[in-house]
């Protein structure tokens, strides 16, 4: 991490929801920094709290049943306790978000152009014609052909990939400093996925916006992320640069994630590699390390919560939550450095 003041600094963020099944601790002490222009990938299974973390930064999880602790400082403003009025000025203008499902994220009865114009005018109050011109430019920039005509179309006249481009144009319309992309490609087919990611990468280079990319797919982040935070059951279990996570993963859960990616260039395994067991219910999580029940390397220490800290010499920015010693980790993991999918140790899982 750089010495410069981070753009966004999240400290010990906790989010819980009161539900009928009891209190669900969706986010449990998440801490990370985001520097300007950086791409941070937040990776984890469904229900690991990654989307809740992202949405909480914009105040989109606020509800009478939700409880928030911790802080998130953005350019000197604290976001978690900020007033709704204050947040409104941040939303869309400073921090913008691209959602998972482009099919449902646009208002079906409003022209796509006017949905973008609406946001520009909310934050900048410029004349209609000017806002419209900018909208056309934005749509061109995200790669929508014949943008000048398409600006007056309705969302249902666009394909899924095109709608996601509209969402990206919407998110970029007020030049935000932080772009949160919450599984932006999950609902799209594979070829479109690549185009959308490519577009996000290019736009980040053009605009210099920092990106928080929330995803469950480590394959997606390999191309685009600078740093990776791996989340499990509401906690960050490992955090480091792209190289650190891919070449020297420290947490057994990260090994599992890396190992569970199938590869077409390898002999097909008998069964798809998967992490045994299920993620815990967030309403009733195991004490200590949450990954303990699924971890093949569990031992006595694991009943205590391992802190998220640097455990490798000379690498202050590679943090993890695992009690195993560094030597044990390196000897036990089955994934190969820099590789995704199970390594050459064929049958190591048998």
């Amino acid at each position, binding site marked *: 991490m750089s010495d410069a003041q981070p753009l966004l600094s999240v400290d010990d963020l906790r989010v819980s929801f009161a539900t009928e099944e009891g209190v669900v601790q969706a986010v449990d002490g998440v801490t990370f920094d985001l520097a300007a222009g950086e791409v941070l990938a937040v990776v984890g299974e469904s229900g690991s709290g990654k989307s809740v973390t992202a949405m909480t930064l914009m105040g*989109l999880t606020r509800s009478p049943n939700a409880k928030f602790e911790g802080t998130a400082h953005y350019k000197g403003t604290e976001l978690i306790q900020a007033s709704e009025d204050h947040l409104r000025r941040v939303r869309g203008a400073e921090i913008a978000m691209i959602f998972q499902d482009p099919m*449902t*994220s646009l208002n*079906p009865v409003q022209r796509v152009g006017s949905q973008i114009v609406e946001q520009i005018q909310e934050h900048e109050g410029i004349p209609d014609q000017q806002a419209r011109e900018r909208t056309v430019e934005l749509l061109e920039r995200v790669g929508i052909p014949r943008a000048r005509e398409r600006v007056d179309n309705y969302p249902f006249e666009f394909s899924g990939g095109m709608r996601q481009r509209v969402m990206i144009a919407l998110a970029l319309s007020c030049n935000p400093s932080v772009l949160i992309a919450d599984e932006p490609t999950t609902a799209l087919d594979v070829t479109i996925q690549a185009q959308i990611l490519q577009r996000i990468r290019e736009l980040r280079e053009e605009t210099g916006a920092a990106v928080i990319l929330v995803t469950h797919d480590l394959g997606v982040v390999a191309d685009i992320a600078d740093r990776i935070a791996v989340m499990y059951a509401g906690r960050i279990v490992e955090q480091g640069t792209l190289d650190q996570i891919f070449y020297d993963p420290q947490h057994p859960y990260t090994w599992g994630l890396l190992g569970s990616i199938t590869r077409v260039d390898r002999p097909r395994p008998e069964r798809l590699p998967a992490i045994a067991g299920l993620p815990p219910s967030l309403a009733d999580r195991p004490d200590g390390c949450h990954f303990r029940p699924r971890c093949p390397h569990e031992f006595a220490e694991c009943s205590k919560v391992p802190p998220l800290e640097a455990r490798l010499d000379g690498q202050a920015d590679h943090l993890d939550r695992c009690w195993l010693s560094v030597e044990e980790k390196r000897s036990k993991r089955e994934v190969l450095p820099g590789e995704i999918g199970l390594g050459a140790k064929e049958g190591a899982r048998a």
Partner: protein
Amino acid sequence: MGRFVVRRLIQMVLVMFAVSVITFLIFNVIPNSDPAVRMAGRQASQSTITEIRREWNFDDPIYIQYVTTMKMVFSGDLQSYFTQLPVGEEIRKGLPRTLSLAIGAALLWMFVAICLGLYSAMKAGKFADRFLTIVALVGISMPVFWIGALMNHYLGFKLGWFPNGGYVELTEDPIDWAYHLILPWTALAILFIGFYSRVLRSNVLDTINEDYVRTARAKGLGERQIMVRHVLRNSMIPIVTLWGLDFGAVVGGGAILTETVFDLQGVGQYAAEAVGQLDVPPVLATTMFLAFFVVLMNAIVDILYAYLDPRIRLQ
């Protein structure tokens, strides 16, 4: 949009044709007795009956009878053989009264229902919402002839705050017109307010959880703008459909009770009285007229619906 409107209007004409055929069959063919005798009403002389049989071509084949009947109904020379009054003239006199009642009540119930429904949705689960739920249920459960009679008796007769029934022409005195209609509007609207506010409440609660509302919030829009532009517009679509259909149904017969209770002398009351006297020509004409009105309203609703929801108009 233009093509959609034309297509829908052609459809409407076809439905109207079907309605006219069915009405004709029900009145003149299905009852197994001499249609001329029924047409003539009670206490008709043999010569009247013979005259009617000739005039309506009741001895000719059915399709000629159909054409003749339609001519009679639409030319405006249809008359009641019982009261000797021209039917077309009576309907023309009653129509502004019925429309005054129906349009005023429809605007009233829509406006109040939007306010209450929206308020209820925003306070969902709280006391205000529960209270309004009960009020709506009570409103839905009160029959219009009962609440109308109560209002008329207490507010009109006993307290004298409102006129005790009757109607004043809008062109004559707009204020007196509205004054005479306040009670009928309210009595007719109560049922619909209860119903519509419940439907709107649940629509709003569904819409609030839509992804695009979250997008609107993420855009930094104010709560009011989110509610009006994104939530309400989408929640209104089913309500507008219901509105047009109910409005058609009110004009097409639903207002009969209200008109009668408040003695408004509208088309509905005219039809009801004709039925009471077994006076067939007015019943035939009002049935056709009101059925056509319902069909027309259906077409208007569909066109309005297409305006509100672009997905329909462009298909």
